[in-house]
């Protein structure tokens, strides 16, 4: 586990309590690659962050499970909203895409009511060249430009074009800040 190696060099006493938590990895080699890659992605996001998006591994120190936040872009119905997502990375990441879900309830043509997202780069169009940041940026743009051709939420897709005002109210109705963790 690469990050375990790294923690040996940090100040003594700050060793992770959940060191053993990731010991159950089935394929060590693959897992190591994934964590290394994710660590680098994290570093990159921290050093050159993109506006409006942020992500971080979950609080238990598991690098394969992240939480992300997208600020709703201006000029979209989601402006001013904080949308939370969860990323679950497979052990052979980046060769298979992460599973991304909206945790915050969202009213959007391409997102169903349990948060599942219909986005091609998370399915068949995934390549290892994508990373967490690009996925988040894609999602951010998806908020402003939904793909109404293949909606998961048909009503939303219809309203998007027909009645933006109603769409906005639906969005605001559906939205609920999840503070409690």
């Amino acid at each position, binding site marked *: 586990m690469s*990050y375990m*190696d*790294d*923690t*040996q*060099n*940090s*100040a*003594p*006493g*700050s*060793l*992770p*309590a*959940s060191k053993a938590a990731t010991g159950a990895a089935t394929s060590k080699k693959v897992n190591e690659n994934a964590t290394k890659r994710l*660590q*680098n992605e*994290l*570093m990159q*996001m*921290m*050093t050159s*962050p993109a506006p409006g998006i*942020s*992500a*971080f*591994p*979950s*609080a238990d*120190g598991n*690098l394969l499970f*992240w*939480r*992300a*936040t997208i*600020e709703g872009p201006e000029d979209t119905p989601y402006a*001013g909203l*904080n949308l*939370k997502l969860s990323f679950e990375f497979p052990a052979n990441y980046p060769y298979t895409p992460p599973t991304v879900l909206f945790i915050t309830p969202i009213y959007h043509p391409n997102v169903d009511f349990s948060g599942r997202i219909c986005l091609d780069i998370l399915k068949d169009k995934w390549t290892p060249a994508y990373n967490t940041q690009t996925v988040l940026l894609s999602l951010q743009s998806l908020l402003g430009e939904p793909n109404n051709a293949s909606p998961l939420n048909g009503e939303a897709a219809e309203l998007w074009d027909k009645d933006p005002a109603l769409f906005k109210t639906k969005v605001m109705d559906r939205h609920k800040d999840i*503070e409690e*963790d």
Partner: protein
Amino acid sequence: MAGLVVASAWREQRRKRVFQSVFSGEATSTATVAGVQYPDPGQGLGGSILGSAAGHSVDPYLAPSSSATLGHSSPEPQPPHPYAPGNEYAPGNEYAPGNEHQRAYDQAWEVVTSRVALPASAAGPAPGAGESSPGLSLESLTAAQEQPQSRHRRNQKVDEEREQFLQCLSLLESAEAVLPEARERRDVIGWYVSQVRAHFAMWVVPLLAGRSDTAAAGTLAAQGVTHRRHQRNKHSVDSTAAGGGREWSGGSQYDRHMAVVMSTIETLEGALGMYFEGLNSLLEGLRRASGEEDNSSFGMKFKRDIHALIANSASQGGVMGSVKVVLTKLAGVILGVEGLMVSLGSKKGPWGAPPAIPQENDFDVLTAKRKLGGLVKQLHNVGLTGERFEVLFAEVMNDMMSRFVKGAYAGVWAASDPEEGNVVGGAGTAAASSVFTTSRGSGGDTTVPAATSSCIKSLKDWVENRYAQLNVQVLSWINATPMSLADLKACQSLALGRLAALRIQELFDIVLAWPDAKGALEDLKATITTTARRQLLTASFSKALEQRLLHPGCSTLEILRTYIHIIKTFHALDHSKVLLGNIEPGLQLYLVQREDSVRVVVAGLLASKEEIEAAAKVQQIDEDERLQRGASGPRAAAADLGRREIKAQAYSTPGVAAGSSTATTYKTPTTRSRQGRDSNPSTPAPAPAHRQGPVLARAKKVNKLVELAKLLNESASDRRAGATDDDQELDWNDLNWVPDPVDAGANYKRPKSEDVIGTLISALGAEDVFINEFTAVIAERLLGDPKSFEQEMRVLNLLKRRFGEAALQKCDVMIRDIQESRKLNSKIRRNNAGGPQPSNIPGQPPVLATPDNKGKSVATPQSSEKSKEQKDTGYHARILSRMYWPAFEKEHFLLPAPILALQKQYEKGYEDLKSDRKLTWLNQLGQTRVELELEDRTVTVDCDTIQATVIYAFQSSSDSSTTPVKKAVDDLYLELQLDEDLIAAACDFWARKRVLRKVSTADGGVFVVLERLSDENVPVGEDARQGQAVEEKGKEKEAAAAGPKEGGAKKLSDKEKEKREVYWKYIQGMLTNSSVTMPINQIAMMMGVFVIGGFSWSHEELQSFLGEKVEEGALEVVSGGKYKLVRKRENV
């Protein structure tokens, strides 16, 4: 003693004395007689036999005075001789009239008992007197002892008296037949036995107790007083003993105890003689009466009983303690543990002689042996050699073994070379040394196996020829089970165990002394054969490490150097590395905490050949000095030992660095390397050490871990030689194969070599940390010394083998950059001369360049003309591929105009050569050769670009230079736009070179060009305070020395700032996404997990950082000390 309860009220209760109460505490061991009760001599049948002794019994030894008072206050008049026949005896008044048989029997009883009755020795005074004045009671006892003899003589004369006794005895024996009417019959022998016991308890025991009490008191009093008088009275021991304890206060402890033992023996002998005489006369009479010969067995039984009695009573008191002291002393002399210093009094040195194997025919040994033999036999005769003696003897011998091993082999670590053994063995006096050699010679005829060290051999020899011999002798004297061969082997292995324990204790010092202590290692190797010992070794060594090495008083360099020794030592000790693996974790954990450990290792790896040679030379000098010192005195080894101790002290006392020069020098490398790293990398490299004489070379030696470089070179050749090592496990022809050690782990794999470097690097934590550090050092060196990187290349190649090509790719690129730059330099120069020749060499997009003005190009303050031919004289740049080099901060300052022109020209040439490339100049990283033409001299200095720029600013503006140029730091700041600290540092640099002179501290310091050296002390212009300024010079130098460090600190803080920003992003991301609120522990944990390269902050640093953020309003603390991001209002 407490078990002995004597009936209280000695006098008034005497008639009722019951012997059972006397020995109530010993019922088990003296069961043969204890249960039977006998009346006192002449006591009437109707008398109350069983007195209520228990109620009145007082321990007479614990409370003698109380019993004495009781005695005095007794109203009943007491006869002086309680055992006198007929005493208090009222014949007939209780018998039924006509029972003549009974009367006759009683009369016969009276006759017999009065004849063999034991004298009440020391009859006159109270029993307590025996304790207060042992000498007196001794005399009284001897008197008492003579009493029966005289009586015997008298009896011989008075035949009829004897005849009467015999008749009465036979009457008593045959009472059944002759006096059938006498119903009350008693056993004469049984009565006598109880008599003896009573006598012993009443008179002998107090006497013995008094003696040992006195000895104990004497011991206390004599402590610290009588050391010098040691042995003066040794040969007069017997007389001392005979004369009582009068000389005790003046004699040595041994003498005193000897006296106690001897007098005890005498007392007991006297008492025993007395007892046996009575018994014998009884037995003789009985024999005659019965006509049988079979009662000798009873004599034996009696003897055994009485011996048991003696042994029991003696063991209670201090007699056995005294015996132990005496035994220890004598055995010590015989076994050579005491050393020969006592007998060789005049030659006695300050240390005395270490224990050594004594020669067979040594006079003292023979005397001691004889004395011991006599003593043991005597003790045996009086019955003091019971089980307790055997235990005592075993204790003494055990102690002897420990002392011998400790004394004879502590610090004797020489290799098993026989010649060397002589020298080391003779660490003490010449006599001891010769003894050592001869003993070796006697046993050394057989071929010694290579693995057996001299210590082991001599120890085995000692056990066999001295130790076991003494054992056998003593055991035969006391008729105990003799020693078998198996016992001997057990003894030997016991002794080897002691040796192992000793070596384990010394192991840390052995490690420090590597490779001089190979002999000790062989001892250890041969003796740590059990898992328990191996565990003891690792445990004790780990502890020693913690106490003596792993504390802030030791520099990282010293720890690492010791670590190398540890690796080597343990490899010699245990090829399997299991032991090393067991002690390593603590050390590694500590090393990881040391920030500079990686740097020290890398610097050591990259040490140049010159440095290695210099270090070797220093070592040679040290060695020579030691040899010289060794030749000057016979106690070379001892002195060396002392030195080692001092060194060890330096290790163990972190606070007292002042006392030891070593400790202070250890600290320097830390600051040095830090300085080198943080300040400009092109600080002029120190000249090779071997030119600077031994003193400087020594300092140099301390500064670098050159051992590593040496090892690296060696291992390179080794590895080539042993390339086919891989199938070592399958080498069926390997006759030295040994199975894996028992304490090896499950996944244990036999390592091939000691592999110091590998072990060291793996100890420093993760690979990438090491590689990053290595890259940084390499970068520094590549920018610093332009000529050759052979050493770097070699180290790089070796490291590649260890870590793989990919890991060290950066270094490859860096080296290639430098090489390419050289080619490029010549090309650009050619192109600048001729026409542009664009070529398309693939490279890395953005490049940095460091100007490298080699040559006689730059600023000369005197000559204002700058020759134009400079352009081909040497403006070189190094093109660095930005991605692969460590991040360098750009330091802004204005270059001198001519240099700037050259730079522009070069840049143009480069851009012609490689289109789409842009150069970013890192001006502060260059080197410059400066030639200064002053009025009376020319100075040529290699310095860095900042220094060159500063001195250029002092260039005279016109030819008419009547007054030297004078500038203030503040002015220079405006002129050069360079950091003031750096300007000041550069000025001080030139001041040290005696080119500039500081004349004032105003405006950050005013400097003037020192045109003539003779001007140095002349006041400049109207400045009257010049004299002071010169005096201040010394101080300024110190300030200058501090200068670069400040610059470094400043740069560091830039880096730190960057780090803080990144960390803040992490924390923000964490608190946005992972969890809205987090306690500091979790934040620290998450940072530790997710930050690449490790989270370098301590808990406290993180806390203060978070505290700052709270103050800034970016964070808030919510319940439970958790941190939370403050929400931006507009987002909600």
